[in-house]
């Protein structure tokens, strides 16, 4: 697979390292939690300047039913059809130049998955994530489950 020509951001949450094309990142917000009557985080939050849904994802990319209040950031992403946010523990530029993207092995490459490739970043593996497919995945009810990220 070709090396990545565009810049990538390395987004980490729940132990997962995701690579996202920086062009798809609208903004990076500090976590501001709106809380409901039970003082629990709502699954969807409103970011004042970029009104959009915010979700927390697990390391398996399942959608948590609550926003993870332990995360420090909300990364607002632009998909084809809309903007949405995901929570993250850390966000940084990819710390290597000209990263070599490797296709996922055929046996684990699913057409409906937003993950198609990976990059070895020092001791870690970061997975390249297609934002449009990620949004489609979040929108499918099958991907939502009852867990707290």
């Amino acid at each position, binding site marked *: 697979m070709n090396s990545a020509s565009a810049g990538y951001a390395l987004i980490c949450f729940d132990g997962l390292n995701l690579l996202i094309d920086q062009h798809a990142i609208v903004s990076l917000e500090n976590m501001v939690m709106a809380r409901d009557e039970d003082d629990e985080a709502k699954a969807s939050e409103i970011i004042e300047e970029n009104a959009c849904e915010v979700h927390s994802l697990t*390391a398996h990319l399942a959608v948590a039913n609550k926003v993870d209040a332990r995360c420090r950031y909300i990364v607002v992403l632009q998909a084809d059809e809309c903007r949405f946010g995901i929570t993250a523990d850390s966000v940084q530029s990819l710390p290597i130049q000209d990263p070599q993207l490797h296709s*996922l*092995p055929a046996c*684990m490459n699913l057409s409906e998955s937003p993950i198609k490739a*990976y990059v070895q970043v020092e001791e870690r*593996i970061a997975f390249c994530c297609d934002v449009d497919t990620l949004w489609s995945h979040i929108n499918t009810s099958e991907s939502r489950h009852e867990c707290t990220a």
Partner: protein
Amino acid sequence: MNVRHDAILFEFTSGRHAAIGPHEVAELVMSPKLVPVPMAPNHCHSLCIWQDRAIPFVELAPLIGQRSLENIQLALVVTYFARSNGEQRWGALGLSTYFRMVSVGDDAACPLPQDSSAWPSIAHSCFRLVDENVPILNLDALFEQRLALVS
């Protein structure tokens, strides 16, 4: 004439075995470093970091409707040539205990186990050992295609 061949026999879950050719073994890794892959199928849920490579890690148990190994202590790194382009590739298989070499005669050939419809897709053939039908894996098919998880 009953020709005999060596095979590497390994247990992939309690009491269940599969085999590969001796030339397909690269290394037995203890406490393999595994990186889970989001949304990957149950039987190949992780990449295994081996010699600075990330190679697919496959467990056979989910393919026959059994649970994954709870504590993965052993990975058998295997090598094969991709049918698509002849390129040498590597993969890792989850083992529940150490492998061993066995000698198998042609007269031990038998039908594949009936416990999973996946076997015909991932096995070249099968031999009878004591009271078990042991599939001989087709590594190219196992690592180079997407399998339906049906038991």
